C-alpha cells in the first residue's frame, strides 16, 4: 500500500516544482507563526526556522539538494527583483545618505576588514583547514559575490554560500540587540551594520522595520560587495 502511494503520488509529485515550492512556502509561514508566538522576537527568525524545517524534510525524504532546488529555484529567482527593490528606500533617503558619505566610507572599510580578517584568523587559530579559512573570507557579502570571490581565492563556494546566509541570520538575530547594548540607537548605524556584516538576510530584517535603515542597509550591501570583490582577491593573492 505505502509502496503504491510512493509510486503513484510521491514520484510524479517530486518531479514537479509544485511540491518543493509548497514545502518552502509552508515552512516560512510556519516560521512566521512561531515568531508571532514569541511576540515578534528577532531570535525566532523565520528564515532560520524554515531553513531547518525544509532541510529536515529534504534529508528525511532522501531528496538530493539538486532536485529540491529545481523546484525552489522560482523563489530563489525573486531575490533579484527584491535586491533591486532596495533602490526605492535608498532613493527616498538619498540626501541623508549623501550627507553621511564620509561616515559610511570609514565604517564600511572598518567593518569589512574586521569581517574578512577576523573570520580567517579565528578559523586558522582553531586549527581549521585553509579551504575553510578561505571560504570564510568573503562570507559577509551578498551570496553571488561571496561565491564568485570564494572561487577566485580557492575556497569552497558552496560552503561560502551557506556561511553567507547563516552569518546573515546571526546578524539579523543578534545585531539589533547588541547595538542597543552598546547604546547605539540610530537607524543609520543599524542599517549599515546589517548591510555590511549580514548582507541581504540581515538587511531584510532592518528594512522591514524602518525605511531609513533600509536605505543604509542597501548602501552597505552594495558597497561592501564592491569592496570585498576588489580587496579579498588582492589580500589572498600570495596565499594559495
Amino acid at each position: 500500500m505505502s509502496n503504491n502511494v510512493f509510486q503513484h503520488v510521491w514520484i510524479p509529485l517530486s518531479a514537479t516544482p509544485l511540491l518543493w515550492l509548497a514545502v518552502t512556502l509552508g515552512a516560512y509561514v510556519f516560521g512566521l507563526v512561531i515568531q508571532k508566538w514569541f511576540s515578534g522576537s528577532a531570535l525566532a527568525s523565520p528564515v532560520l526556522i524554515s531553513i531547518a524545517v525544509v532541510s529536515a524534510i529534504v534529508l528525511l525524504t532522501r531528496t538530493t539538494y539538486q532536485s529540491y532546488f529545481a523546484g525552489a529555484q522560482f523563489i530563489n529567482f525573486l531575490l533579484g527583483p527584491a535586491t533591486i527593490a532596495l533602490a526605492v528606500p535608498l532613493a527616498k533617503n538619498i540626501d541623508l545618505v549623501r550627507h553621511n558619505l564620509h561616515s559610511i566610507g570609514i565604517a564600511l572599510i572598518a567593518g569589512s576588514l574586521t569581517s574578512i580578517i577576523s573570520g580567517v584568523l579565528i578559523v586558522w587559530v582553531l586549527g581549521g583547514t585553509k579551504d575553510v579559512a578561505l571560504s570564510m573570507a568573503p562570507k559577509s557579502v551578498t551570496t553571488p559575490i561571496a561565491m564568485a570571490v570564494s572561487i577566485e581565492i580557492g575556497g569552497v563556494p558552496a560552503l561560502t554560500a551557506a556561511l553567507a546566509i547563516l552569518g546573515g541570520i546571526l546578524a539579523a538575530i543578534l545585531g539589533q540587540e547588541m547595538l542597543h547594548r552598546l547604546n547605539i540607537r540610530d537607524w543609520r548605524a543599524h542599517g549599515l551594520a546589517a548591510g555590511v556584516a549580514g548582507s541581504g538576510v540581515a538587511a531584510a530584517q532592518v528594512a522591514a522595520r524602518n525605511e531609513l535603515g533600509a536605505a543604509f542597509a542597501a548602501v552597505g550591501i552594495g558597497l561592501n560587495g564592491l569592496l570585498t570583490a576588489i580587496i579579498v582577491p588582492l589580500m589572498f593573492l600570495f596565499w594559495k
Partner: protein
Amino acid sequence: MLAAIFLFVGCQLTGEVLRELLSLPIPGPVIGMFFLGALLVCWQKTGTNRNIPVEVERTAETFIRYMGLLFVPAGVGVISQGGLLRAEWLPILVGLVGSTILSVAITGFVMHWTSRTRHTKVALINSERTL
C-alpha cells in the same frame, strides 16, 4: 503592481547586460539596484516636489517584507556541506559567530560615532526593543 515589477525586472536585466558589457565583478541585481536608485533620484530631482510613484513604493515594500523567504532555497544548501561541517564544526562555528558579531559591532559603532552630530533626530530609534 505589474508596471512596478516590470521596472524591477527591467533594471535587473539592465544590470546583467551592463555586467557582461563592462565585465564587472559585481552581480547584475546589485548593479541594477544602483541603476534604479540613480533613475529614481533623477526622477525626484528633475520635477519640483516629484515623489516616487505610490505603486513602485508599495511593490518595493512587499518585496522587502518577504525578502527573508527568498533566502530559504539557497540556505537549504547547507545540507550539501554536511561533511565539512562535521569535520570542522568548531572553527566554522566560532569563526562565523565571532566575525559576524565583531563586524556588526565595529560597523555600527564607527557609523554611529562618526555621524553622531548630524541629523540625529530623524535617525533615532524609539525605545522599542526587539528581543
